[in-house]
């Protein structure tokens, strides 16, 4: 994705330091490419100005699909395709349909949402991750800043010092061929 690009990689040791840093750096007008953390740091997305995800809506819609599928299947098969007298019950005994309807609702919404998530976040077994610093899955918090996108306002040195001032324990530069 970012081949040939040159990035400055700020490595932080502590999430609270990172959060403050993000605020300051963004105020100084430097665009942050992305931040990589070993665990979900609360307040990080707001600091980066990310909008909350719409996935719950997707979940709801998928659930709806599940409900409709279930009821159509049950009513269609038992009520119309081949009605049978079963235990003297009517051909469409709605109460008996509730459990399966519920289960399919849950199934559809859960699977639907998860797969949506995998697709939009571009996660799949054959994806090679974009690693600025391997330690970002262990105990380091990594901030990647794309130099080209910021060269209009500031250059490598200023960003490096900006990072250092804001508590980055190291600043490396990384280029993806």
């Amino acid at each position: 994705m970012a081949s040939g690009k040159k990035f400055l990689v700020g490595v932080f040791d502590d999430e609270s330091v990172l959060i403050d840093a993000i605020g300051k750096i963004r105020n100084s007008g430097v665009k942050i490419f992305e931040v990589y953390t070993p665990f979900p740091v609360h307040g990080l997305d707001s600091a980066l100005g990310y909008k909350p995800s719409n996935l719950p809506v997707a979940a709801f819609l998928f659930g709806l699909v599940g409900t409709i599928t279930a009821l159509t299947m049950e009513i269609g098969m038992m009520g119309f395709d081949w009605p049978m007298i079963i235990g003297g019950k009517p051909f469409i005994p709605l109460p008996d349909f509730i459990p399966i309807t519920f289960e399919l609702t849950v199934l559809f919404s859960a699977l639907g949402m998860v797969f949506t998530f995998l697709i939009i976040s571009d996660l799949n077994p054959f994806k090679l991750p974009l690693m600025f610093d391997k330690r970002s899955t262990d105990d380091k918090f990594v901030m990647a800043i794309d130099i080209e996108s910021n060269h209009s306002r500031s250059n490598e040195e200023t960003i490096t010092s900006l990072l250092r001032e804001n508590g980055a324990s190291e600043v490396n530069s990384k280029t993806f061929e």
Partner: protein
Amino acid sequence: MQITSPVRPPLVTGGKTYHDVTADVCRPVESAPSKAWIAALGFALMLLGFGLYCVYRLVWDGIGMWGLNKTIGWSWDITNFVWWIGIGHAGTLISAILLLFRQKWRTSINRAAEAMTIFAVISAAMFPVLHMGRPWVGYWPLPLPNTFGSLWVNFNSPLLWDVFAISTYFTVSLVFWYLGLVPDFATIRDRATSKFRQIFYGMLSMGWDGAAKTWSRYEAVALVLAGVSAPLVLSVHTIVSMDFATSLIPGWHTTIFPPYFVSGAIFSGFAMVLTLMLITRVVFRLEDYITIEHIESMNKIIVLTGSIVGIAYISELFIAWYSGVPYESYCFLNRATGPYWWAYAMMMSCNVITPQLFWLRFVRRNIVITFILSIIVNIGMWFERFVIICTSLHRDYLPSSWAYFKPTMYDVGVYLFSFGVFFTLFFLFTKFFPVINMSELKAVLKSSSGSSNSQSNKRA
């Protein structure tokens, strides 16, 4: 960050840093298997082997290999099924409901608990298939288009509800569990030294890079999944209980079954989690992560659900008398005093009486007693299902068909088989997967670890 009351003792002891967490959790995965682990796996495989023979005879010769008869059509088979399903509730419950309740102590046990859930559900799901007269057509309960034309399934049947409930539950739990594993796989991948491990865990981690954007979506997904799993986990045992509640056999036809079964499930599920965690923490030296605090919290839930179950037993007896239905009242009288009184006694003592010990703090905090009690609870819960299923059937309406059930070697063998499957899978899991959810633990490390954050101290 949540506010945690200062009086609450730390959930992670030993002043762990983020890196320590990673190191400790990854150690079993990265180091060579320990002797203890190999021994354990070997034992599990032995069970599997013997069980496999019994399953083979069962499938080859017929259900007649079991001790069932014209009156008692279900006994150990469905008892085991319900028992395993019950156990399979703890995991999702812990991760889903406790997540919604923001119970942070769950973080160090939910991974193993979910794994246990999934393996328990697998063990459980074997029985509905194996108990069929013709397991080779075991796929017929699925509403598949077929060459017979309009040949569908019977949506009135609670057994069919089971099929949907359990497969849904299994799928969702699996997804939930795997999703939680992805970031940790990434950690292992990035620590991996050998090419194979890099590729293996690389694929498992699906190219996770821990980007903030992904994390925020990830959390949304986790929250919603927890939201849908919570009612799901309750629905599963409710539906299982309907197998009995919707029938008309005295002792089965009981409206309190759903809540009664669900609390029973949590009861036995937590007990099983405890049993396994107490072993794991020793075997993998995770005492700092699975602490007395965790164990005590679990024990509190056990004594609560155990008491609920006890109340259910008593109200059953009361209703049997109060209803004035002769068959109902005889059924329960017969349970307690009839040929199967010993099963009833086992159930009562193991499920209602002994768990009351957990009202005592030192018992809750005593590893050994907890371990023993956790096993006793599951023995009791097995007998509960046996009592409900077998003693209700063996003397139902027409005295002419009253009968007695004696298990054969094959009843036992198939039960052992399910243990073999369960433990084999569980031990493999402990070896190759991170048994503690690192990312979640790190997230709560500061708020819940004993030491104030150690990063700065270290740098100084």
